[in-house]
């Protein structure tokens, strides 16, 4: 089970702005092993969605991928022709988005939006596509799938819409599913059902990149976790290690914030300060202006992500250990 399905190497995404070029994704490397659920966690705006969009070739203009490679089973997506890469999407890699309401076309029947995928990739005829879509609807737990096929998105609840999205993403049995905050817009009971469904998908052989700011979701679902901060990966570890013994001060802060919630302490623990704007990043380590342990060195030099034996961390403090 150590085969690498997706490798991202030194990915950079740049956007020109009035205040100069910014890099929402700055030399990010990550791997997804076949058959696993890999988590990518971080605050809003840290670049996790942008990383996923780069894989799907969905970066909005004027932004673009300016460096690095994305490999699917060793094939470099950047070296592929436009059409070849496009046809990979929906068939080998697919993606579901945060807001299932706005992610479905409001003027198209839910079923049609799903069978469009197999009609495109497998050339299935209309009748067969309809049959398979209804089958898929049933598989992702949509009750009364025949009727739901002809429903418009506004006639469905948020949970059902996300199931439609999942059906759409899964109908060609892709190798990789990128789920960008798939449960953020849903309420807690529905979230649990959707997560359960995703676990089933993994058992069915699909690897998943799960993007979330919710550590509870990450803890429940993932084997491997990457923590992202201000465009960079700051820590990477197996789920158990990460939660038991976080190395990076940022990860520690994140975990403390969650624990304080669970223990209902009077005071909510937070990380002081805000995520820095990408055009006014602090010198040295990007977390140094919010870090309680920051030293002179942290404010001068930027720590690289280094292997610490089974885990990776980008922090100078780990030198002492």
């Amino acid at each position, binding site marked *: 089970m150590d085969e690498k399905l997706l490798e991202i190497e030194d990915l950079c995404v740049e956007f020109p702005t009035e205040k100069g070029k910014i890099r929402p994704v700055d030399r990010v490397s990550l791997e997804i092993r076949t058959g696993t659920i890999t988590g990518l966690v971080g605050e809003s705006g840290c670049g996790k969605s942008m990383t996923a969009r780069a894989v*799907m*070739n*969905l970066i*909005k203009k004027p932004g673009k991928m300016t460096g690095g490679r994305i490999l699917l089973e060793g094939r470099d997506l950047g070296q592929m022709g436009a*059409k070849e890469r*496009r*046809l*990979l*999407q*929906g*068939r080998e890699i*697919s*993606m579901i*988005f945060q*807001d299932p309401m*706005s*992610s*479905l*076309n*409001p*003027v*198209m029947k839910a079923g049609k*939006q799903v069978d*469009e*995928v197999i009609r*495109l*990739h497998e050339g299935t005829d209309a009748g067969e596509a309809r049959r398979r879509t209804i089958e898929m609807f049933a598989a992702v737990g949509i009750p009364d799938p025949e*009727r739901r096929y002809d*429903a*418009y998105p*506004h*006639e469905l609840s948020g949970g059902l819409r996300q199931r439609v*999205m999942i059906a*759409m993403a899964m109908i060609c049995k892709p190798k990789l599913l990128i789920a960008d905050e798939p449960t953020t817009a849903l309420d807690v009971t529905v979230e649990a059902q959707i997560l359960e469904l995703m676990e089933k998908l993994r058992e069915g052989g699909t690897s998943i990149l799960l993007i979330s700011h919710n550590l509870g979701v990450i803890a429940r679902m993932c084997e491997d976790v990457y923590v992202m901060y201000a465009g960079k990966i700051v820590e990477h570890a197996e789920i158990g290690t990460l939660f038991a013994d976080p190395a990076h001060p940022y990860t520690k802060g994140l975990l403390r914030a969650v624990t304080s919630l669970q223990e209902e302490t009077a005071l909510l623990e937070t990380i002081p300060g805000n995520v820095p704007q990408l055009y006014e990043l602090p010198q040295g380590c990007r977390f140094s202006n919010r870090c309680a342990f920051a030293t002179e060195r942290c404010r001068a030099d930027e720590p690289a992500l280094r292997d610490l034996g089974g885990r990776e961390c980008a922090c100078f403090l780990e030198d002492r250990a």
Partner: protein
Amino acid sequence: MKRLLQAVLVLLLVSLALFVMLRIVPGNPVAVLMGEHANEATIERLTAELGLDQPIHVQFFRYLGGAIRGDFGTSYSLGKPVSQLMGAAFVNTLLLALAAALFAWIVGGLCGLLAAIRKNSIPDRLFMGFSLLGISMPVFMVAMILQYVFGYWLHWLPISGVSDWRSFILPAIALGWNSAGSIARLVRSTLADTLEDDYIDTARAKGLSETAVIWRHALRNTMLPTVTMMALQLSGLLSGAVITETVFSINGIGRLAVQAINGRDIPLLQGTVLFATALVIFGNLIADLLYKVLDPRTRREVKE
């Protein structure tokens, strides 16, 4: 059904308002009709003959009674039944308006589409410059330029009158020019916004080609506001028809209305304005229905 009743009510109110207004304006239509040298007795006799001496409510109900039966009275200046005059003019105006609308939708729509897909490209700037010209140029000016270039100069198309379908080309372009400009702008901005929507990302993530993304997913959503504007423009098209028909000497409703105003021809004016009102109401009705077809969210929920 409810919308249809509403439409009838609006039509009724408009005819009432029109009727009252035409009788409030100073100047005796009979005096105008008879010319400067008519004597008092003749004017009085004719006023009685036309029923203009009756109280206004009696006049209105007489008129309404006639209108329901399709009788809009007799034109003072042309001496023929209004319904007969309008019947002949109706076809010309309808053809003109349809051709103009077709021109506006196709040219405006296509320009907007291309501009949105290639935003900030040379065609985009060209189309948008043209559309600005379209919006800001008055109808009569466009009409005269077209007449000069294609009629007088190149001798490609007839300048005035109606002989065959070619006679409608220049008037239709002149009349539709304005709408084409605003439609192009609206389609461009709406489509550009639509292409930023989340479901467009979903469509791209499926692996659909950009053409399929636009035709299957973006265009129908873009059409929603465009349809509304097209309906609203119908009234503009009608007022434009007044000018276009006059400039190109087309015997249509617009030209009849101008004649009616000049001659204080009350029955004819009532007839033409009522016709224009009906057309606008009809356009809005069509837009409403079309909206229901295009946007499932506006259909009444019957399920569950």
